[in-house]
């Protein structure tokens, strides 16, 4: 899968969960501190990534989802 497509899809997915416009999210912004994400939303992002890319992300990686860019990084680690 093209890297650019992963970037766009993860951003869209997170924007949808946070109920924000994708263009208004700084990919390096801290999802909890800057964008008000809670632990439930983090799980929704994880589940959304798994479903969208048909991958399995270990539960231990959940704390890694701290920004859009970190979520993209994590996704790329498991997408073949």
């Amino acid at each position, binding site marked *: 899968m093209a890297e650019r497509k992963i970037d766009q899809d993860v951003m869209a997915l997170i924007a949808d969960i946070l109920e924000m416009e994708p263009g208004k999210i700084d990919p390096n912004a801290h999802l909890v501190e800057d964008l008000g994400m809670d632990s*439930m939303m983090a*799980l929704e992002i*994880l*589940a959304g990534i*798994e479903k969208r890319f048909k991958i399995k992300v270990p*539960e231990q990686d*959940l704390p890694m989802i701290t920004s859009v860019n970190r979520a993209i990084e994590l996704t790329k680690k498991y997408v073949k």
Partner: protein
Amino acid sequence: MTQTIALLRPAVPPMLKDRVILITGGSRGIGRAIVEAICAAGGRAAFTYQSRKADAEQVVRQVSGEGGGALAIQADIRDFKRTQAVVAETIEQFGRLDGLVNNAGITRDKALMMMSPEDWQEVLDTNLTGTFNACRAAIVTFMKQKAGRIVNITSVAGLMGAERQVNYAASKAGIIGLTRSLAKEVAGYGITVNAIAPGYIETGMTASLDAKRLEAARTQIPVGRFGRAGEVGSLAAYLLSGAAGYITGQAVVIDGGLTL
């Protein structure tokens, strides 16, 4: 002919058909009855046991013809990492996990003045921390699939208190607090969390109690008898089923009216 067909029809609909349930402490007593009830309702049961391998194997053999059968896993649920591995093994073996029953529990009954810190800690570690460990190990799976059933076995001792059981009653009251809090936390994820609070049930645990105390207890039960483990099993199967989707955060008392 119609009558014959009606007789052949199972009395209980398979309300847990193809559901996979993990039960802690399933080799005897109430836990064993829950394993049996799940399999009788068409479900598949993975259960832990700590040391009674022969008992566990007998349970597996006994339910092998019913539902999807059972899987016995040796584990000490006080160990969080081991409990995580049990959840993973269940999912690997059966392909899914739909529910969890936290049943494993012990007693170390003594008057407080005779109770050692070890007596206190052992009971808290198994009954309360063990329940936390299994809930924690399974919750992400349930949240991701937006569905799950958790049933925690507590006791009327946790509601009313019981002499010579400050450790046991505290652990069981703690389970009720955990149940109610978790129920609120995950209700939006299609997960229900309930507790069952049995009174006196005929099991090895009650058999170990003082005979005089048991007889005195019997006279206080309006129904006039001790409960049967199978009756708790049926209640657990119901709470694990789709039919119980609107019940959450409850401690369902099954005590023959003892606490009335």
